[in-house]
């Protein structure tokens, strides 16, 4: 009886681990898409709205969903409250939020490099930098979609099967 309960615990644990890893794979393209639409809205705010950066960031954080809204929220707060440059505020808020997202190092570098250009040029070169970051992110998104298609199912079944194997070995 105790053995059976332990076996159920093991299989539930490994299956949950597998599904959690799979969720990570499915979350990444979704968040990349959200990030791209965020940059597009930022471009619209800059080009057509002539909005100041902290105002634009606040609006973006209201528009977006969980992990990314936190990023633009902290960015806006840092710009408003502390004496700092845009580059530093962008980078530190990126670092703070990055842990809670499913995004990887490549996206981090793209966003960091984009932040270095933010607010240093006129509107049209700013637009070009946004376009550059968008095209980089698009490439990463295609990558992420492909990784999802290959690995999502694998990780799910791998979790369950490794649990099963562990039970058989220990039984």
């Amino acid at each position: 009886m105790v053995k059976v309960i332990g076996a159920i615990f093991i299989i539930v644990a490994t299956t949950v681990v597998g599904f959690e890893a799979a969720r990570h794979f499915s979350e990444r393209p979704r968040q990349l898409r959200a990030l791209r639409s965020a940059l597009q809205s930022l471009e619209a705010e800059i080009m057509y709205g002539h909005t100041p950066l902290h105002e634009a960031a606040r609006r973006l954080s209201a528009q977006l969903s969980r992990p990314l809204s936190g990023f633009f929220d902290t960015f806006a707060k840092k710009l408003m409250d502390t004496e700092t440059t845009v580059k530093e505020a962008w980078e530190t808020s990126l670092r703070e939020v990055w842990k809670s997202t499913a995004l990887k190092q490549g996206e981090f570098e793209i966003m960091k490099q984009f932040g270095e250009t933010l607010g240093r040029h006129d509107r049209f070169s700013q637009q070009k930098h946004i376009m550059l970051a968008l095209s980089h992110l698009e490439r990463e998104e295609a990558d992420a979609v492909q990784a999802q298609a290959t690995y999502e199912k694998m990780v799910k079944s791998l979790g369950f099967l490794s649990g099963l194997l562990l039970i058989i070995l220990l039984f």
Partner: protein
Amino acid sequence: MGLEVDIIFKIAGVGIVVAFLHTVLDQVGKKEYAQWVTLFGFIYILFQVASIVDDLFQKIKSVFLFQ
């Protein structure tokens, strides 16, 4: 007899699960991991079978060689 049946089921279970793991890993193009998994499953079963065969030989020895 109970123990023997148990161990046969165990070997069969390991075989099935390892075969599934092999196919899953093969499908996503991780051929090298698939081969390692199969190899480790095989080695594990080999140890099990070796210990059982060892038991058998000890028994034969004790029956026929009058130790």
